């Protein structure tokens, strides 16, 4: 099984390293042809405006939407923004998931934080070490979207809808590979 990581800008190497550690081959995706033969795709953290503009220029928007219709896709941070239907401001979005997302929802970099989260469906008892960097939050999700983690104040920070996964935080910056294993399992299930 091969999983792609959108490599237009951002923390794509970190995801590739994590996938490799779990024994999965990972491929950098920069052009539409790079999607061929992949079983899943991760859209990494980075600047969502940069990623969106480059996706438009290199004609990736429709191929990414077509890919997402059949395969597992996971967006972390900027990736979650890029997958959302609506973020309240005008920038290129894939709009594949029925969620409304707010960018920089916790403030600027000086407000970035680490915390431990309970996540539904995650293996093991230990909470997950979550790193939030100028992070977005889920404002609203349509029926059919399952919120799988919230902060203590109820803010939704991770969700699943069919073969799609989004997280406000950055599992690729931690030493904990359980979220990546969860996504690999989702990609595997779509392939069967």
């Amino acid at each position, binding site marked *: 099984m091969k999983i792609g990581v959108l*490599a*237009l*800008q*951002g*923390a*794509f*190497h*970190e995801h590739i390293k994590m996938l490799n550690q779990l024994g999965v081959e990972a491929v950098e995706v*920069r052009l539409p042809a790079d999607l061929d033969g992949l079983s899943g795709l991760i859209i990494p*953290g*980075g*600047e969502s*405006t*940069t990623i969106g*503009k*480059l996706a438009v*220029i290199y004609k990736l928007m429709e191929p990414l939407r077509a890919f997402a219709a059949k395969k597992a896709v996971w967006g972390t*941070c*900027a990736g979650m923004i890029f997958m959302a239907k609506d973020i309240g*401001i005008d920038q290129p979005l894939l709009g594949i998931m029925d969620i409304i997302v707010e*960018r*920089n929802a*916790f403030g*600027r*970099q*000086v*407000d*970035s*934080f*680490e*915390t*431990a*989260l*309970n996540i539904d469906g995650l293996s093991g008892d230990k*909470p997950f*070490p*979550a*790193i*939030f*960097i*100028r992070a977005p939050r889920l404002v609203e999700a349509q029926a059919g979207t399952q919120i799988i*983690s*919230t*902060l*203590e*104040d109820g*803010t939704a920070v991770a969700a699943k809808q069919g073969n799609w996964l989004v997280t406000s935080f*950055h599992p690729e*910056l*931690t030493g904990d590979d359980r979220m990546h294993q969860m996504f690999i399992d989702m990609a595997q299930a779509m392939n069967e």
Partner: protein
Amino acid sequence: MSDVNGSNGSTGGVGSFKVKAGLAQMLKGGVIMDVVTPEQAVIAEEAGACAVMALERVPADIRRDGGVARMSDPDMIKGIIEAVSIPVMAKARIGHFVEAQILEAIGVDYIDESEVLTPADEEYHIYKHDYKVPFVCGCRNLGEALRRIGEGAAMIRTKGEAGTGDVVHAVWHARTVLSDIRKLQGMPTEEVMTFAKEIGAPFELVMQTRELGRLPVVNFAAGGIATPADAALLMQIGVDGVFVGSGIFKSGDPAKRARAIVEATTHYNNPEILAKVSENLGEAMVGINVSSLPTEEQLSTRGW
């Protein structure tokens, strides 16, 4: 690096080294552009910059004007923060920890303790662990990079020679850091302490670099990058991203050149795309040949 602890909350671990270094990881593969007005910041964001550096004068003008170069007016930086959604960086003078306190107070996302400004201290840099806001610092070699990381820098950039449009020192400094790391990895363990002493770097960070095979934080290139090919050159040499200072807004068609440099940084390994984005960019900035600059006019010699 701090530990993650506590149950689900929203305020734990604010300003930890992990979140400071983490923002730099989100900038990787991207271009950080110098801007002097909110209008330029919008052009940079539109072109796909992953962050902007807010300053009053780009390095080429600082070089031309001479005199003392200081932190920019906080009101001008706030105007740029309000104009864009991407991270905003700003420069403090080397060792000027009060300028850093001011920049943290107005909410910049990264502070560049920069040799482009006139140093405020000729012996000591800022102790950067004391801040919630992350710092990026310049270096010319591995020892300088690890001293800055030891002081708390969460991101490194090789210095190059700012305001010249001549890429030669950017290449030299990036190559020096990378070849220092290769040398470190090739030596037996018993030689590492003496190597650390020779380069003037903390032993633990030298050992960490040896294990990782790279700097422990993100490393961008800076100083003299003026064309898409320059950006791709540095990316192929092995840096994580690029700063472009005077190269964009001192050129004939800033918006077009900015976008071309962004595309070249993403597709740095694809010569067909590099050829295409390099076409018809208009005038590049007027360059200064670095080898014609006397040492005392080379900004990269500032930093200790």
